[in-house]
């Protein structure tokens, strides 16, 4: 959350998209509301139906995947967000 607020929310070049792996909508929403997730979220009913997104899922959660607008994978890692953060920093430094 801290990383989102400091590095993504104000950066027009990138957005974080949350794809929940929860098995029911209630669990997904309860968690999001409890933590006050500030990022755009894929609707529960669509989460597993968007091929462009589902094919990106790494083996294991949490998983982090950085893609460009055409869906080309630039960095991907399950368990740690660091490789994705490093790549993003490299891409958006100015």
């Amino acid at each position, binding site marked *: 959350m801290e990383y989102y*607020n400091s590095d*993504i*929310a*104000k950066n*027009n*070049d*990138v*957005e*974080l*998209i*949350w*794809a*929940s*792996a*929860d098995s029911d909508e209630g*669990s*997904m*929403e*309860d*968690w*999001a*509301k409890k933590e*006050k*997730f*500030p*990022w*755009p*979220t*894929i*609707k529960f009913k*669509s989460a597993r139906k*968007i*091929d*462009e*997104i589902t094919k*990106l*899922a*790494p083996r294991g*959660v*949490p*998983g*982090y*995947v*950085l*893609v*460009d*607008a*055409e*869906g080309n994978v*630039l960095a991907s890692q399950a368990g740690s967000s660091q490789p*994705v953060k490093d790549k*993003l920093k490299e*891409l*958006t430094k100015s």
Partner: protein
Amino acid sequence: MGQVLCQIDGIMKLKSIFVSCSLALAIAGACHARTWTSADGKSTFEGDFVSATDTKVTVKRSNKDMTFDISRLSTEDQSFIKEEVEKADAAAKAKEESEKLKESKIPKALAGKLVKLDSSGKKYEKFELADGIVPKYYLVYFSASW
């Protein structure tokens, strides 16, 4: 317009507000009337920056557009005009890039399928990437509550 800039009520709205402000700046240049000073520093007047070319500036004063040589203004005003033109150019470029990005695979795939918690954090509302500046990159976060 000043109210728009002053009513930022949370980081969740920053991006869309940025777009509104960029457009507003491109159109009007500033939120409040500026005090302009003549090159010799002897006279001033209030007005809103509208637009500029390399040598001319247009300022709205009492709802009337006035166009005159930039050289008639103080160095500070000339610098201000240069900055405003650069801002407007950057906003126009960002808008153009954003329009192109809307047609890319990821933004198209996500159209109509995103939600975001409202400012209270209690209710989901529709969210469209296309309503703001469409990003070049997407950090897809796969996770679950368990």
